[in-house]
């Protein structure tokens, strides 16, 4: 572990002080130092000063500025008080341990901060650009739209661009948390922040650095720790009242019982213990540290959270509302089933693809795509292709007339066919008036969708609801397959907001909206928490959402909820633990059941444990 200069200095002072304290105690024990105050006090002061000097200085300066109740001042009073009642070793020990706690805190915070900075190590330092036929290295800021960017294997892509030449695999791990590389070829968009793994790429820059994905993400991550959670604010408020209250309590304890019983020494001692446990540091630092760690952990998984408050809200998710297309389903049409009357699937697919080869309708595209990946048959030559708008196509293949289209087409042509029972777009194929079979094309449910919905239900989400603009039957099928708690179909964007309002009226926690962030921005803004999926490369989604999932894997949603709940649990543990121990020691001290050594251990120990606990969020 590397310490900073000031941390090393503090460590040196602590060691010096500790050494002197041990030495003085030893000398006293073997009887060299007589037990008289005018010898013991100066000896202990020598051990005290190395650790106390800075605290005294700070306390004096802050008191001069009118800031009385700060921890420096409290520690000073507590230790000076201990000297006054002749508890010399205690006085040194309290200050010594206070400094140990401070040092530990500073190391822990520095460590968290560094590991998060390392996580977000996606900032490109330079860009290799071709200008006038020569390669020059520029700062990413200086590169302009239209420049040709050259990215060698192993280099980071500095700006968003379109591949002009070359093909390669890109490592998107630092952006998405996804280990699987993404392959790019000519014409594809290459996103900044990715690392080029295999081949040399030449890109045409399409965005200036400031608007590139990497800059946007960095900006988001850097500003996320500025937004505070409710728990953080509550703890700050608590600290604001706690310290003065304990100080007043200490003052009363020192005076009132002493006046009654006359035991000044005993009650002064109790009051000093009060002061030692009066610092709320454990809480004030561990709660934000937990959230800081949670945010860092989320970004390591490719989940960008725009603030601790959003992470907190997610942990209370009660209702999760999904958009359908692109969120629960893949959002692209695919051949899901081929049902030939006789013969094999490949032949049927080849005939259909051949008839549709001139069309660029999404249905035709999915047929052609399925053909190229599934069928080994050569594509038959089709002539005289005729588009029958709204019905399908007619073509001549090897002298036979082929009809490819909807059920309406079959009915119009008077062909008897076997209707496709499932939801989706059914394509029927007929050759010379004889029905050959059907091909079902539909939007597929994402592979982790079912699992994610189950996880959501298992971890306490009451309702998972889908709102979609798609047709009723398609929506019903998806809702049934995923066992959703409700759905509404054929909604316009404005209807979605209306439905959302109704759900908002009837909720026990946070209402989360999950969408692709492109056409559901109003709903996302209206929900308590908006989550955009598959946001890599989509500025609109990054802008609109509170939480951004960098790729479109639904599993990230359950990961995000998991992290948020884990963080919340740790925060609660720390709050209960820290306040509990402090209150316990306040009680102990009133009934004279503890001493300053134990109180110091309790105070610093609680802080150290709370910090260690908080740092667990980072590792999740």
């Amino acid at each position: 572990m590397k310490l900073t200069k000031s941390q090393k200095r503090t460590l040196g002072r602590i060691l010096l002080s500790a050494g002197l304290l041990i030495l003085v105690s030893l000398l006293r024990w073997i009887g060299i130092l007589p037990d008289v105050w005018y010898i013991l006090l100066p000896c202990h002061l020598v051990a005290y000063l190395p650790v106390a000097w800075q605290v005294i200085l700070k306390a004096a300066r802050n008191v001069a500025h009118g800031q009385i109740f700060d921890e420096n001042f409290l520690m000073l009073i507590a230790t000076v008080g201990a000297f006054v009642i002749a508890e010399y070793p205690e006085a040194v020990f309290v200050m010594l341990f206070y400094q140990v706690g401070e040092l530990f805190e500073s190391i822990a915070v520095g460590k968290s901060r560094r590991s998060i900075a390392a996580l977000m190590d996606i900032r490109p330092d330079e860009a290799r650009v071709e200008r006038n036929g020569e390669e020059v290295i520029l700062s990413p800021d200086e590169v302009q739209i239209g420049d040709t960017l050259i990215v060698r294997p192993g280099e980071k892509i500095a700006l968003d661009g379109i591949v002009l030449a070359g093909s390669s695999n890109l490592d998107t791990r630092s952006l998405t948390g996804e280990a699987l590389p993404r392959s790019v070829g000519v014409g594809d968009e290459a996103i900044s922040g990715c690392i080029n793994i295999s081949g040399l790429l030449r890109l045409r820059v399409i965005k200036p650095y400031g608007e590139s994905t990497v800059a946007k993400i960095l900006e988001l991550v850097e500003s996320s720790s500025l937004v505070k959670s409710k728990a953080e604010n509550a703890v700050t408020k608590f600290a604001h009242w706690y310290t003065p209250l304990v100080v007043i309590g200490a003052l009363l304890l020192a005076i009132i019982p002493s006046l009654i019983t006359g035991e000044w020494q005993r009650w002064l001692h109790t009051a000093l213990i009060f002061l030692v446990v009066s610092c709320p540091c454990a809480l004030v630092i561990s709660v934000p540290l937990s959230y800081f760690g949670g945010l860092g952990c989320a970004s390591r998984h490719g989940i960008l959270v725009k603030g601790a408050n959003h992470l907190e809200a997610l942990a209370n998710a009660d209702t999760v509302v999904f958009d359908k297309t692109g969120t629960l389903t893949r959002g692209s049409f695919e051949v899901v089933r081929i049902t030939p009357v006789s013969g094999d699937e490949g032949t049927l697919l080849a005939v259909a693809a051949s008839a549709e080869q001139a069309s660029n309708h999404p249905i035709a595209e999915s047929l052609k795509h399925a053909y190229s990946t599934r069928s080994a048959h050569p594509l038959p030559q089709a002539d005289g292709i005729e588009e029958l708008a709204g019905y399908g196509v007619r073509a001549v293949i090897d002298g036979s007339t082929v009809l490819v289209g909807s059920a309406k087409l079959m009915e119009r042509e008077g062909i008897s066919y076997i209707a496709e029972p499932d939801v989706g777009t059914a394509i029927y194929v007929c050759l010379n008036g004889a029905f050959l079979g059907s091909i079902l094309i539909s939007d597929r449910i994402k592979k982790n969708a079912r699992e994610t919905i189950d996880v959501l239900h298992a971890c306490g989400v009451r309702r998972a609801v889908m709102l979609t603009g798609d047709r009723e039957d398609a929506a019903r099928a998806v809702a049934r397959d995923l066992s959703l708690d409700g759905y509404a179909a054929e909604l316009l964007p404005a209807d979605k907001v209306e439905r959302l309002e109704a759900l908002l009226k009837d909720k026990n926690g946070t209402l989360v909206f999950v969408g692709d962030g492109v056409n559901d921005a109003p709903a996302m803004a209206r929900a308590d928490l908006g989550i955009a999926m598959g946001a890599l490369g989509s500025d609109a989604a990054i802008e609109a959402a509170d939480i951004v999932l960098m790729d479109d894997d639904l599993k990230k949603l359950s990961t995000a909820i998991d992290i948020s709940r884990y963080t919340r649990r740790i925060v609660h543990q720390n709050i209960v633990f820290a306040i509990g121990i402090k209150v316990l020691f306040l009680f102990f001290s009133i009934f004279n059941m503890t001493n300053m050594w134990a109180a110091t251990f309790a105070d610093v120990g609680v802080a150290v444990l709370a910090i260690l606990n908080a740092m667990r969020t980072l590792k999740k």
Partner: protein
Amino acid sequence: MKKTFAMENLDCANCAAKMEKNILKIDGVRSATVSFFAQKLVLEGDDARWDEIVKEACKAVSRVDADCKVIAK
């Protein structure tokens, strides 16, 4: 106007909270966040008084902790 300032030697979370509270009291400040972890101050305030606001905010910071500085760019 809204601006983010880097901070130096902000070494206690409690101080950050106090600074934030004091900065919010400055006339013309609409919002202020002092982040201990990011070591940053985000300040939003009236354009007309902007320069004074920044100056007073720096003062409010050093009043809580004399070692801590706002790096005014």
